[in-house]
């Protein structure tokens, strides 16, 4: 069933705001991860401004859904989503990457709304697995004896990051314990730090790998809000196994002149800034 056009429109607007605010942060910090921040922006918008249960006024609420961004260098659109949602004042954006600033160059739990301090790749899925287990301890059981978790845990992982062996340790364990309140989303933007996925470490076929581990596996266009929302909703319906949404994305998505370039870690020049603001109007 198609989602309300107004909802889709709202999420598209939010995603633009996240990208614009990310650009401002990168300008303030004079460095940042624009490519991966932009490729995940639509997924984050769908999660934070519609699908996830959370309360910016009560960031420690025990029953909140968690978002673990394992590729934590892509922090700018995470901070932007939290600022836009009202976890903190957007004034904080100016502190991005600054000495003594709250918004560090990789996400840290000291920031209101940030669940996970990343920076060392491949670890976020294990952390999300632990959080998902915690949601089931002492939880009431349903009629078939399965625990009914107090919250869901969403974990965005990268395709380059999937080189790390620990990702697959977590994949193995989450299935073993049938952790169905864990929903991983692969931001499959086809690039890693120093080149394309194909050049550096070709992990094709992606879908078969996750299916071989018997996860609930779906492949979508990670910039199609209809597809993102449908995949998230379907994940809630499949019980007894963890979920992976393989989201095909475009590095730097949102600014046509940046797209398909590996703008992994860089500053934004005046010229780029003008292009970005024009595209993200």
């Amino acid at each position, binding site marked *: 069933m198609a989602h309300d056009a107004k909802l889709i429109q709202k999420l598209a607007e939010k995603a633009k705001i996240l990208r614009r605010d990310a650009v401002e942060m990168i300008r303030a910090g004079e460095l940042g991860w624009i490519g991966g921040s932009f490729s995940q922006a639509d997924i984050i918008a769908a999660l934070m401004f519609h699908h996830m249960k959370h309360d910016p006024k009560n960031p420690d609420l025990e029953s909140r859904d968690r978002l673990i961004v394992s590729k934590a260098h892509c922090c700018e659109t995470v901070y932007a989503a939290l600022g836009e949602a009202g976890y903190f004042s957007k004034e904080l954006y100016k502190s991005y990457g600054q000495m003594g600033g709250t918004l560090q160059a990789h996400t840290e739990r000291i920031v209101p709304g940030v669940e996970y301090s990343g920076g060392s790749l491949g670890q976020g899925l294990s*952390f999300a*697995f632990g959080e998902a287990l915690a949601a089931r301890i002492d939880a009431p059981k349903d009629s078939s004896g399965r625990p009914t978790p107090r919250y869901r845990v969403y974990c965005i992982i990268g395709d380059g990051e999937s080189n790390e062996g620990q990702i697959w340790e977590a994949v*193995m364990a989450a299935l073993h314990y049938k952790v169905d309140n864990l929903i991983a989303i692969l931001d499959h933007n086809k690039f890693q730090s120093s080149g394309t996925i194909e050049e550096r470490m070709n992990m094709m076929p992606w879908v078969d790998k996750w299916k071989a581990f018997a996860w609930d596996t779906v492949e979508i266009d990670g910039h199609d809000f209809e597809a993102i929302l449908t995949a998230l909703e379907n994940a809630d319906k499949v019980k007894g196994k963890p979920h992976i949404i393989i989201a095909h994305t475009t590095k730097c998505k949102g600014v046509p002149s940046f797209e398909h370039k590996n703008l992994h870690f860089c500053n934004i020049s005046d010229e780029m800034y003008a292009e970005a603001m024009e595209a993200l109007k």
Partner: protein
Amino acid sequence: MKRNYVLEPLGEMKAMYQAYHEEMLELAKKNGKIVLLYGDFPRGAAGEFLQKEHPDRIYDVGIAEANLITTAAGLAGGGYLPFTHCHSIFAVGRAYNQIRQNVAFDKLNVKIMLCNSGMLWPFMGGSHQMIEEIAALRAIPNMVLVSPGDPVSTKKMTRAIAEHVGPAALRISNPAVPTVYRDDFPFALGKAVTVTDGSDATIISTGMMLSDALEAAETLAKEGIKVRLLDMHTIKPIDEEAITKAAKETGAIVTVEDSSIIGGLGGAVAEIVSENSPALVNRVGIKDRFGQSATLPELKEEYEISARYIAQAVRETVKKK
């Protein structure tokens, strides 16, 4: 020689992992937040209890130490109190970055059991004998590292780290060790125990070397060398006051550990003494070598850490004063 809080004669031999589990069983029964995590490791009494009574508070992630430590961090993030169990060599050696980044960085309330820690793991050989865990862990900000020397102190430290809010690691040696302490011995995290009083020299021991250090102190007492024996059961935060006082009052210190002296207890004590009150520090411990398959007495002799080597180190250091 007067011995403080020490059983005379020493009490029953017991494996430290068993002593840990006896205490953990009591803690896990009372504290519903405790979750035990294993990396393909023996359950122990507390694990068997949870498996039966609270199966949602015990997990084994298989032979995957990185996932073990980070999963524990996630459980702590979710409000629980996880204790991880795997060999020290693999916890610290394979999951160092997970301990640093996922646990210590955020001061998450994760307790890491360093099972079969140190050089004194008979038979297993150099691949398994973990000599650098003290050096590695004490360099990580926010970490608490405890290293008990007998079954009684193992129990007290298990309780202490469960009550401490924040990251902590506990060294648990493989061999059965004699019960040194009476049950009523005073224990506080970060406060060394003065096991014997003395002014000629100080032996500072950590972990299961305690009984060898005590034997050395007794031997020396018969020769007229009065030794102060400090049980440095907490490596971090270390008891700087006791170390500085010992340096000032005795002028000769011998450190004793079954770890590498490079960055180990010997390194830690030397750092403090050199800054506060320079005194001779002779480091008994593993001297830049890997381990090997051998029996416990053979290991202590080959690596020159048995009571007779400790006593000899004290004699030499006192002579140099």
